[in-house]
Structures are given as structure tokens and as C-alpha cells.
């Protein structure tokens, strides 16, 4: 079987398109590269969606934690503490067990029955956990940035007569993003790494559709040779990390575009706070 044929058969195997049976003997390098690459689709899916949704929740949480009112501050503090203070691995396990306890038939709300069976599936359940998890981490980063918005900037906004929403949208929020961006880039890298835990922690793989590490482990178990599949997975992740750094670097440039050229901070990929 040629390699192109293999790619056609297994390139989209992780989302259920292509050959149904996984290769079972005579494993080739091509098969390993194709299937592990195919599994990366799941890592991308989890990472991108959790980041996008998490960004908004994180902003909300950061603002709430910075609030003077305990009614907003306390819940935000607790949410951040629970999700930052416990291992993601345990969160996955717990979430899976908890979701599995929901009634199968669905929950009736206002006469409409809300189906619950999808939530124990990795594509939804694990995404929810990753979404909350990254929100908590990013919220802590944004909160720190919010605390270090220069006083002068805020006073200048006041002097222009800005207040409330306008001041937040035009001054506080952009500055917060600018200051927190290097750390947030780090968080994005680690979130993508965290997606590899999904199929190792309770959430079952259906129809042998899993992420890059699921297939890497499949090959390592079948070929009894960990020296090929794991480095392949590592290779894909290094590529992914470089892409994340490139994309976030572009956004960083945009966030800093009003700063004089020479004092623009180049994005430092050595922030002290990692996750």
C-alpha cells in the first residue's frame, strides 16, 4: 500500500472518515505519521475552541475578581482557586464521573427535555473541562495585568471624560491584554499540551477515534517500540507550538502598535508565570 493511499485511508480517521479498521500488523512509518497527524485534529479542536470561549469567560472572571463587591469577587476567586488549585487530570476524572451520573433520559426544563447523553462524550465533556480550566488560568493572568495597568493611563482616560464601559473598552481592556499577552501566549501553549490528557483520564474513545497521543500509544503498544510513535507525536507538537507562537506574536504586534518602535517589548517567551 502506497503512502498516498494510506493518507487517503487514515488522514481523517480520527473523525470517523476513511478506513474503519486501524492497521493491525506490518506497521509502516507512513501509517504512524498519518494516524498520529490525524489525531492532532482533536488536539486542535479542543485547544482552539477552549481558548476562544475561555478568552471571554477569563475576561469576565478577571474583572469580577478585581471588583470591589464581594458578590462578584468571591465566586470568581473560588472558581479560579478550584480550577487552578487542582490537577487537570483529577478534574477530567471527576467531571466524567459526575456527567455520567446525570439522568440518561434528559432533564426536563420548562417543558423541554434537555438531552444529556452527549456530555459524557469526550468532544463535549472534555471540552467543557478544558474551557473552565483555561478560563481560570487566563483569568489569573488577566487579573494580574489588570492590577498593573498604569495609573497614569486611567487618569488620562478620566481627563478625557471617559467613564464606565467606554473607559474599560478603550483604555483598561486593551492595556490589560497588552500587559498580559506574553503570559497568555504561554497559557495557550500549555492548553494545547493539556489536550493530550483527554483520552487518558476517563473519557472513552469511541470507534477508536482519539487524539494524537491516543494513536501514538496505540502504535507503541502494538509495535512494542516507544522510540518511533512518541517522537512523532512530539514532532507534531513542536510544530503546533511554533504556530501558536507565530499567531500570538502577530496579535502581540497589533496590541503594541501604538508604542514607540524602540520601547516596544518583544514578546518574551520567558514569563515567570507558566500556567
Amino acid at each position, binding site marked *: 500500500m502506497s503512502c498516498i493511499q494510506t493518507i487517503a485511508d487514515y488522514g481523517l480517521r480520527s473523525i470517523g472518515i476513511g478506513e474503519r479498521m486501524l492497521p493491525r500488523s506490518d506497521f509502516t512509518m507512513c501509517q504512524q505519521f498519518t494516524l498520529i497527524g490525524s489525531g492532532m485534529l482533536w488536539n486542535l479542536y479542543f485547544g482552539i475552541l477552549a481558548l476562544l470561549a475561555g478568552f471571554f469567560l477569563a475576561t469576565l472572571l478577571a474583572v469580577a475578581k478585581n471588583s470591589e463587591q464581594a458578590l462578584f469577587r468571591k465566586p470568581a476567586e473560588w472558581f479560579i*482557586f*478550584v480550577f*487552578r*488549585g*487542582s*490537577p*487537570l*487530570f*483529577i*478534574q477530567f*476524572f*471527576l467531571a466524567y*464521573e*459526575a456527567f455520567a*451520573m446525570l439522568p440518561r433520559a434528559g432533564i426536563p426544563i420548562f417543558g423541554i427535555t434537555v438531552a444529556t447523553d452527549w456530555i459524557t462524550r469526550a468532544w463535549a465533556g472534555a471540552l467543557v473541562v478544558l474551557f473552565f480550566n483555561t478560563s481560570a488560568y487566563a483569568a489569573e493572568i488577566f487579573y494580574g495585568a489588570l492590577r498593573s495597568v498604569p495609573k497614569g493611563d486611567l487618569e488620562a482616560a478620566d481627563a478625557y471624560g471617559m467613564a464606565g464601559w467606554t473607559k474599560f473598552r478603550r483604555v483598561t481592556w486593551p492595556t490589560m491584554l497588552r500587559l498580559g499577552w506574553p503570559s497568555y501566549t504561554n497559557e495557550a*501553549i500549555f492548553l*494545547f*499540551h*493539556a489536550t*493530550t*490528557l483527554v483520552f*487518558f483520564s476517563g473519557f472513552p474513545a469511541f470507534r477508536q477515534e482519539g487524539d494524537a*497521543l491516543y494513536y*501514538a*500509544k496505540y502504535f*507503541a503498544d502494538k*509495535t*512494542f*517500540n*516507544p*522510540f518511533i510513535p*512518541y*517522537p512523532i*507525536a*512530539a514532532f507534531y*507538537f*513542536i510544530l503546533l*507550538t*511554533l504556530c501558536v507562537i507565530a499567531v500570538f506574536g502577530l496579535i502581540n504586534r497589533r496590541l503594541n502598535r501604538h508604542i514607540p518602535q524602540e520601547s516596544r517589548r518583544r514578546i518574551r*517567551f*520567558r514569563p*515567570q*508565570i*507558566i*500556567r
Partner: protein
Amino acid sequence: MFESCSDPSALHGLSWMLCYLTTGKHLLFYGSFGIVLILLAITAPVALIFGFGGALAARSALWPFKLIGRGYIAMVRGVPDIIFFLFVPIAMDQGLEFLKSRAVCEDTSAPVWSNNEFHVCAAAKIPLGSSPQLYHEIYGFALAVIAFSVVYGAFAANVLYGAMQAVPRAQLETAEAYGMTRAQVNRRVLIPQMWAYAIPGLSNLWMILIKATPLLFLLGIEDIVYWARELGATKSQIYAFPHPDWRLYYFLVLLVFYLLMTKLSEIVLAKINRRIAFGQATAAGEALRKAGA
């Protein structure tokens, strides 16, 4: 454990629960919390040593060291830690046994890797097949410690490298002006001053390390996650204490354990941060000085 527990089927309610929670298996579960703490206690200093080596190498003037140091830091940052955990212990184990086999085996003509098998003579096994199970467990645990140290050492190297760069240039130049050699500058000026800049990052790293300990389970170590899964799973009548699926409750216990660990660390680290910042030329040190005055 207790006399009254000898016939579990006759027990009810609280006494059943008391006996259930003191079975030999539960005692192993409680003991496994100790394993997590031991892992933390050993890994943290070892990772710091790895990190120190990595950071000094990355700053080295000799390009091969620099390349190794930077490569090490970049490598671990780009790859999920779990891949390292699945890979490093096996590679270490086979590598060590291979080296030992070259030294102690009489006949080394047979290939070590053949037909999917990894084969060395009995004398080259680490530990020997005849050694007690405890040795095997300690060996497995040691491999896990190394895997953790390699990964978190790279993060520590990253933090320490940043901290060394953050020490004001003028301080080092002054030391040079006094005629100190590079090694003396490192030892007398750079390293003592670096800590103030490194502590926030290292605190953060300690928190990450705590949260990485459940991954021990993936390395085949009988840690808290292993026992929580084993104890919580449905127990049919074949067991002395049958019960339905209780994994949710066991995992809640683990969650509480980790939250407590985090909270405790936060309190202790905040104290350390205050101490370290004292007398340093940083914003935090300045705040302390003003508060004292």
C-alpha cells in the same frame, strides 16, 4: 484490622464503614499520599539542580554548552509533558540495562533488541529478577523521579535563566571591575542576587509540580489515583465489602487533598517571598523598606 471486622457481612452502618475504611487496601491508599509527598520532596531539589545546570549551560560562553542548554529548555517547552512521561522511563530503563549488559553479561553476541523483545541476560536486569518486590517498586519510582526532574528541570532552567538575565548588569560589571573571574562573579554576585528574581517563578513551578503528581499513575506507580480507581470501582459479592460505583467520592477526596496542598503552599510561599524580597533592589524590596520605615 480490628477484631470486630472479622466478619464484614454481619456489619451495618457506621461499624461497617469503620471496618471498610481500615482494610489493608485502604491503608495502602492512605500510604500512597505519602508517596506523592516523597515524590515532591525528592523531585523539587533534583529538578532545581537540573534547572541550574540547564541555565548555566544556556548562559555559557562555549557554544556547544549553550546549544545543549537552550535546546533542552526549548525541547521540553514544545512537547507535552505526558509524552515525556510515557517515553523517558522506558528509554532510561532499557538504556541502563543495555549498558549494564555490556559490562556484566558473558555472552553479548545476541542482539539486545530482536523480534520486538528487549533481551539482556538475567544478571543485567535492574533490579535483579530475584530481588524483592520492594526494590522493583523503588526502581520504578526512581525512574519516575528522573522523568519528572528532566521535565520540570527544563522549566526551572527557564526561570533561573530569566532570573540570571534580570540581575542588573551594573552589579556584574562592578564585580568584574574588582578583578573577579567569571566563576567568582557567578558565585559571589550573580547567584545570591538571582534568587529574588527567581522565587516568583519557582513558586509557580512548585504549584505546577504539585498538580503534575497524578501523572505518576500513568507511569505504572501505585499512587493515589491508582488506589482511588481501584477502591472506588464497583465491588461485587466476591469482595468482603461489596459496594456500588464510588469513584466519584474517592476522586472528590483527591480534589480536596490537592486544594489543601495548593492553599498550604500559597501561604508558605507568600512568607518566603516576603523574606527573600527583604533588602533587595526590587519593587517588592522597596515596599518592605517603606513599610518598615
